[in-house]
C-alpha cells in the first residue's frame, strides 16, 4: 500500500460569523491518489481545502502532512513551506492580470525568493526554463509572452496549473477547477490534472460537481454535507441514489451524465 500523505483528524472550522463550516472531519489521503470531494455549494468543500494550507485557520483538529502537524504550526515560515508543497488552483484561476503568462508561472517560485529578488523580479535562467517546461506540459508554451488576461478560461486554468507545478508540490489542491469552464474545456483541464497526477505522481484533491467527471477522474470520492463527511468510497460506488442523498432531491438537475 502507498503511504499516507495527509491525515486530517477531527477538523472543525467555525467562522467569525458563527457558521460551522466543518464539523469533526476525518480524512486520510494516500500518496498518488486523485481524491474528489463532492457536495452542495456551502457544504464546506472550499473551507476544507483552505484549512489544509492554512489560508483559513482551523478552529480545532489536526492536519498531519508528511508527518508534520500543519494545524499546530506557529512559525509563518513553516506555514509558507507547507503552502509551497500544497499548491492550489481556483475556480476563477486567480492569475495576475496585466502580467505575462511566463511571469505568472514563475510566481510559483516566490517562496524561495529573497525580498531583493522579489522586488526586482529576478528569476534565474533555470527557473525560467522550468516555467516554460511546465507551460509545455499543459500545452501552452507558445502563450508564454502573452498577457494573462487575454487568455480564454481554459487557457488560464492551464497557466494556473503550470504555476502550481512550478512550486514543485507534492499535493495539489484544486477548488472547483472546472466550474467556470464549458463542458469541452472542462475535460481538457481535467485531463491535464490526471496527467500530472499519473505522470508526475502529484497527489490531487479536487472539488467537483458533476458525477460524470467524478466517475471518470477520481480514484476515490468523499462527499460533504453541511460540514460533515457523509460518503466515502470508490467512484463506482456512488450510485444515483447516493448522489441524490448528497445533493438533495433536485439532484437530477445537477447530475448531467451526458457531459
Amino acid at each position: 500500500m502507498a503511504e499516507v500523505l495527509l491525515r486530517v483528524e477531527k477538523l472543525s472550522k467555525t467562522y467569525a460569523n458563527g457558521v460551522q463550516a466543518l464539523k469533526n472531519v476525518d480524512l486520510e489521503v494516500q500518496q498518488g491518489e486523485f481524491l474528489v470531494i463532492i457536495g452542495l455549494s456551502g457544504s464546506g468543500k472550499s473551507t476544507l481545502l483552505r484549512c489544509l494550507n492554512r489560508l483559513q485557520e482551523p478552529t480545532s483538529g489536526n492536519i498531519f502532512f508528511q508527518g508534520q502537524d500543519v494545524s499546530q504550526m506557529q512559525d509563518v515560515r513553516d506555514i509558507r513551506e507547507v503552502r509551497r508543497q500544497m499548491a492550489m488552483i481556483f475556480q476563477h484561476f486567480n492569475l495576475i492580470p496585466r502580467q505575462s503568462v511566463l511571469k505568472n508561472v514563475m510566481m510559483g517560485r516566490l517562496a524561495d525568493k529573497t525580498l531583493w529578488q522579489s522586488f526586482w523580479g529576478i528569476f534565474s535562467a533555470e527557473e525560467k526554463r522550468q516555467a516554460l517546461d511546465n507551460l509545455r506540459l499543459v500545452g501552452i508554451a507558445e502563450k508564454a509572452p502573452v498577457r494573462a488576461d487575454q487568455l480564454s478560461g481554459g487557457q488560464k486554468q492551464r497557466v494556473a496549473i503550470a504555476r502550481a507545478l512550478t512550486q514543485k508540490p507534492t499535493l495539489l489542491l484544486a477548488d472547483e477547477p472546472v466550474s467556470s469552464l464549458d463542458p469541452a474545456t472542462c475535460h481538457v483541464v481535467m485531463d491535464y490534472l490526471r496527467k500530472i497526477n499519473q505522470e508526475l505522481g502529484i497527489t490531487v484533491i479536487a472539488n467537483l460537481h458533476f458525477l460524470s467527471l467524478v466517475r471518470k477522474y477520481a480514484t476515490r470520492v468523499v462527499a460533504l454535507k453541511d460540514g460533515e463527511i457523509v460518503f466515502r468510497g470508490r467512484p463506482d460506488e456512488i450510485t444515483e441514489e447516493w448522489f441524490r442523498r448528497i445533493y438533495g432531491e433536485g439532484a437530477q438537475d445537477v447530475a448531467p451524465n451526458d457531459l
Partner: protein
Amino acid sequence: MLRRTIFDGVLFGFLLSVLTAAVLAPTEEQLLQLGIVSVWILIFFALGCVLSGALTRLRVNTLGAVLFGPLAAAEPEDRAWYRLFWKWQLLVALLAAFVVAVVKTEFSFIELFDQHGFAGAVRLFKGLLNPNWEVLPRAVLNIVETIFMAFLATSLAIPLAFVLSFVCAKNIMQGPVARVVYFVLRTFLNVTRSIEALIWAIIFSVWVGIGPFAGMLALMIHSVASLAKQYSEMVESVEEGPIEAIESTGANKLQTIWYAIVPQVLLPYISFTVYRWDINVRMATIIGLVGGGGIGTMLVQYQGQAMWREVGCIIAVIAVVVWALDQASAHIREALK
C-alpha cells in the same frame, strides 16, 4: 428617530436663535461671550428637539421626518405644497439663512455701484485686458518654477503615499495591532488632509522661510495625505483571488502585496498621481500668494502696487499653463483607462 430629532432640533434651534437675536439685538461684545452664547444655543437646540417630538405627536410631518423617517402621518399625494408643514419649514429656514447671510456679509448695492469704487474696477479691468507683455519673460520663468515646485511636491509625495496606502487599507491591516495602526494613521491623514495647502504654506513659510521651498513642502504634505487616501481606497477594492493565489504559493506578506496587489492598482495610481500634479500646479499658483514662491508671489507683488497691466500678463500666463496641463492630464488619464 435620532437623526430626525437632531436635524429638526438644529433647524428649529437656528430659527429660534435668529428670532431672539433679531428681537434682543445683542452687541458684538455680548456675542463674544462664548460660554453664555453656547448655553443659549444649547437651550434653543433642546427646545427644537422638544418641538420636533411634539409635532410628531401631533402627527405633523417635520422635515427631519421626511428626510430620515419614520413619517408621523401618511402624506396624501395630491395635497398642495403650502399645506405641508415641512415645506414651510424648509422655506422659512432657507429664508432665514439667506437674511442672516446678507446681514453678515454686509451686502450692499450702494457699494457695488458706488461711483468711486466702480471707476476703480473699470481701471482694473482695463489694465487686465491690456496686459503689459514686458513682464512676460519673468512670468514664464516664474511659472516654470511653479510647475517644477508642483512636480517635486508630487514626486516626493508618491513613495510616502505609496507605503501609507497599504498601511491604511482595511483589507491589509488585519489583526488587533494592525487595526490600531490603521486607525491612528487614517485619523492622522484625515486631519492632515482637512488642513488646506494654503495653511500648510503659511506654517512652512515661518518654518523654512518664505519661498518656493515652503510652498513645495506645503503641497507635498497635502499631496501625501490626499494620495494616500485615494491609493488606499484602490487597495481596498482589489480582487481577493490573486491575493489568495500568491499567498498559496508560499509567498510572504510583502511579496503578496508586490505581486498580487500592486499590479492591480498601478494604473489607477498613475492616473491619480497625474491628476494630483495637475491640481498641485493650480494650488502652487495660489500658494505663492502667501509667500510660497513661484508665479503667485510675483502676482502678489504687482497686485500690491496696483500694476494691473502686469497682473493681466501674469494671469494670462497662468491661465494658459493651467489649461494646457488640465488638457494633458485629462488625455493621459483617459489613455490609462
